[in-house]
């Protein structure tokens, strides 16, 4: 029986300006990891601040471009500031969020100030925008040459052909050429308000001292009081009838890579329910597809899939899907087999009841692996999406999923059967 007791309290606080702060101390650790996230990603394509305003269009790739540009200031470079205080810094943009982070074993106070100050002090100039277009242009080309990325984005394009998830997070060379300093300032004002942001700090820290530092930093700044931006609808067809059944791209690869996507249409009423749904589906997918399953062994031995096989379940703000991928000589057969397992999932799951406890313990065990990483603890936090759940809530939720709840969640995901196949095939074929 697995038992996890958090060794320390999670400190949660929403500051006067709306910034949400979560602190989790890990006294045995040398490093502290901090991540400041704004709820603005590549799928946000237009916005307005009130009903009477016109919608403002956002060029594709804007959130990611903004992330790059934040590091450069009129009189300093944020990377160098972190460097002076001995921190490793980075940033990344996803479909729905932009995050800025550092990891340090020294000067936590100074580094927290650097993080908050550089993200909360926009500076964009025409010159630096032009230069960034060259750098990101190379980033886009690097991803264009990456078959794994093309496979994933191809699948997303099939699953959401009419929705912004089909567009690369970095945009295109053409779309980022429309970005100007003014557009960056406008988007920044709307989406980088403290009330749209979360700061997590995990690792070596004293919670009350750290909270005081953050409060002092924020109290010294004035923020415009604006409403939160209204955004475009993400999903044009909630039933998912628009899913494209298959697509293929040819690249310089040795063997075909195939990814099957299964779009979910269920809408959980609350963040808590959404976390239960996610936990239950993850268990169900393990039962059907992981290497303890009979399906896996049969398909492996027949050469339909190999050690490259993997599956995952992703939920973000407004959309979710499962995916199954492998390298194979026979993509059509792989897709047919996955579809067959999904079509017969109800019987298969009912027949797997005696393995449920072992799989649940194994899944719990692997979730617990994350407790050794301040980064993993902080990065798993999804805010409102899962009703502010931290990893300990995730562990408790997973442990409380019953066999029946797992089967029900799986059928919610599978029953509409919104399935697609994406293939990256060798050029010679």
């Amino acid at each position, binding site marked *: 029986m697995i038992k996890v007791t958090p060794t320390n309290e999670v400190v949660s606080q929403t500051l006067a300006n709306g910034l949400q702060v979560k602190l989790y101390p890990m006294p045995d650790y040398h490093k502290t990891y901090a991540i400041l996230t704004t709820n603005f990603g590549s799928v946000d394509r237009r916005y307005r601040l009130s009903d009477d305003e016109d919608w403002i269009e956002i060029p594709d790739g804007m959130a990611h471009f903004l992330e790059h540009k934040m590091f450069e200031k009129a009189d300093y470079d944020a990377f160098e500031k972190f460097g002076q205080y001995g921190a490793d810094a980075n940033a990344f943009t996803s479909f729905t969020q932009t995050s800025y982070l550092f990891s340090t074993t020294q000067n936590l106070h100074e580094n927290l100030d650097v993080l908050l100050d550089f993200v909360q002090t926009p500076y964009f100039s025409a010159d630096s925008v032009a230069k960034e277009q060259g750098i990101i242009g*190379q980033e886009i080309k690097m991803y264009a040459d990456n078959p794994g990325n093309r496979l994933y984005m191809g699948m997303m394009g099939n699953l959401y052909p009419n929705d912004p998830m089909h567009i690369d997070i970095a945009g295109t060379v053409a779309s980022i050429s429309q970005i100007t300093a003014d557009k960056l300032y406008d988007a920044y004002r709307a989406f980088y308000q403290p009330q749209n942001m979360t700061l997590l700090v995990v690792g070596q820290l004293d919670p009350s001292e750290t909270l005081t530092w953050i409060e002092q930093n924020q109290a010294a700044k004035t923020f415009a009081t604006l409403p939160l931006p209204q955004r475009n609808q993400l999903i044009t067809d909630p039933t998912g009838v628009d899913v494209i059944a298959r697509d293929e791209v040819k690249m310089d690869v040795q063997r075909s890579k195939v990814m099957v996507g299964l779009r979910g249409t269920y809408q959980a009423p609350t963040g808590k329910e959404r976390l239960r749904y996610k936990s239950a589906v993850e268990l169900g997918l393990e039962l059907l597809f992981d290497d303890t399953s009979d399906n896996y062994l049969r398909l492996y031995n027949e050469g339909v899939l190999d050690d490259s096989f993997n599956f995952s379940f992703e939920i973000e703000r407004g959309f979710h899907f499962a995916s199954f991928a492998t390298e194979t000589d026979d993509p059509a057969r792989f897709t047919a087999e996955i579809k067959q397992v999904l079509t017969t999932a109800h019987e298969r799951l009912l027949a797997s009841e005696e393995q449920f406890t072992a799989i649940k313990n194994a899944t719990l065990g692997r979730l617990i692996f994350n407790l050794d990483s301040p980064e993993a603890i902080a990065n798993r936090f999804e805010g409102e999406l899962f009703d502010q759940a931290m990893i300990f809530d995730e562990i408790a939720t997973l442990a409380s999923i019953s066999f029946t709840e797992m089967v029900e969640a799986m059928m919610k995901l599978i029953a509409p059967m919104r399935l697609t196949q994406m293939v990256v095939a060798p050029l010679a074929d």
Partner: protein
Amino acid sequence: MDLELMTGVNLHVLPTTQFQITRLMVTFTTKHDGQNAAARNLLANVLSTSSAKYPTQTALARHLATLYGATMGAYVSRLSKAHVMRFKSSFINDEIAGEALFPKVLALLQEIIFNPLLVKESFDSETVALQQTNVVNTLRSWDDDKQFYALRQVEELYYQHDAAMKVPGTGTADQVAAVTMADLVATYQSMLANDQIDIYVVGKIDEEAVKEAVLALPWQPRAKQVIPARYVAGKQPVRKQEEVQPVAQTKFDQTYNLPIYFGDDLYYAALVMNGILGGTPYSLLFTNVREKASLAYYASTSLRPFNGHLVLQTGIETQNLAQVRELVQTQIDLLQAGEFSAETLKMVQATLINQHQANLDRSNARLEQLILRNTAHVAANPHFEADIMAVTKEQVVAVAKQLSLQTEYVLVGGKADD
């Protein structure tokens, strides 16, 4: 604790209460000769697929599930000319599981290593055939990642005059395809009889209990081997190669001879030099090739402190190749002339110390350090931070002056698809 259990079999234990998971690794080390890597790679895959007691992958995976999601895998790695076969398991601590997992995981490793699925004197032929196909496919797929492909080409060019070093620790796809059942059986027998064996444990465990449990396995003493873990190429004439492929981005990679090795007196100055040249976001390459000239998304360097060189990697537009080549040369000139600020030196020192301390928080990094030091025969340095802080500008310049271009590989983007 570092303990010789018997001649050629050593136990290394790092007890710590910091982590929720424990890691156990058994390694078999021999000299990499360019011929043995492929069979050892296939062997690692065959052994970790099944055993006499767990005759299918599913049986093995189901057993691992009962150990609360413990992971178990086997793979090969190479440190210069030391070829290492690794059997690794990670599992949650006993008080979380509510039962003692270490003895069970050790028993599983014993089963995997000493009790394979055999038919008469051979491995199960179906398992071998399937794993052989899979390993060959995996190695061929490596070419799909163009950044990695370019890196392997520039390194292979560097090792052009050393038939063994040219071969990766995994063996090549063609070599793996040619391994016979007889090779595999002979490799297995030789590994059990002759390889240096090391057992590593990092986690919340009792040293004495671990020692007692590990001693119960059927180890046999073996002759001590001296396996070189540093490769000295010597300066060669510059070799250049160009290749055209249908890719969107051109890759421009180089290697530089740098005869400074892990643990040498000048090793710390070499780390700092690498950070100033291309190993950090305030490096000369990042600042001048990426940020100022806007020519690349990545332009970086990394040390190869067991193989005596440094590699440089960029991804660029084809038409900018000459400009990038010149700009890279300019950065090396600047470095060798000491044209970098005291602030940059300080930032790189602070970053290296931060990385060093942060690695103490990663049990995998702690384990890797143990393996690295044991394989390279370099004792832990308790003064790492002081040694980094003591590096002077003059030392950085002196180290930089030892850099000499050895190889250059350009993957030229031709017409991209669709």
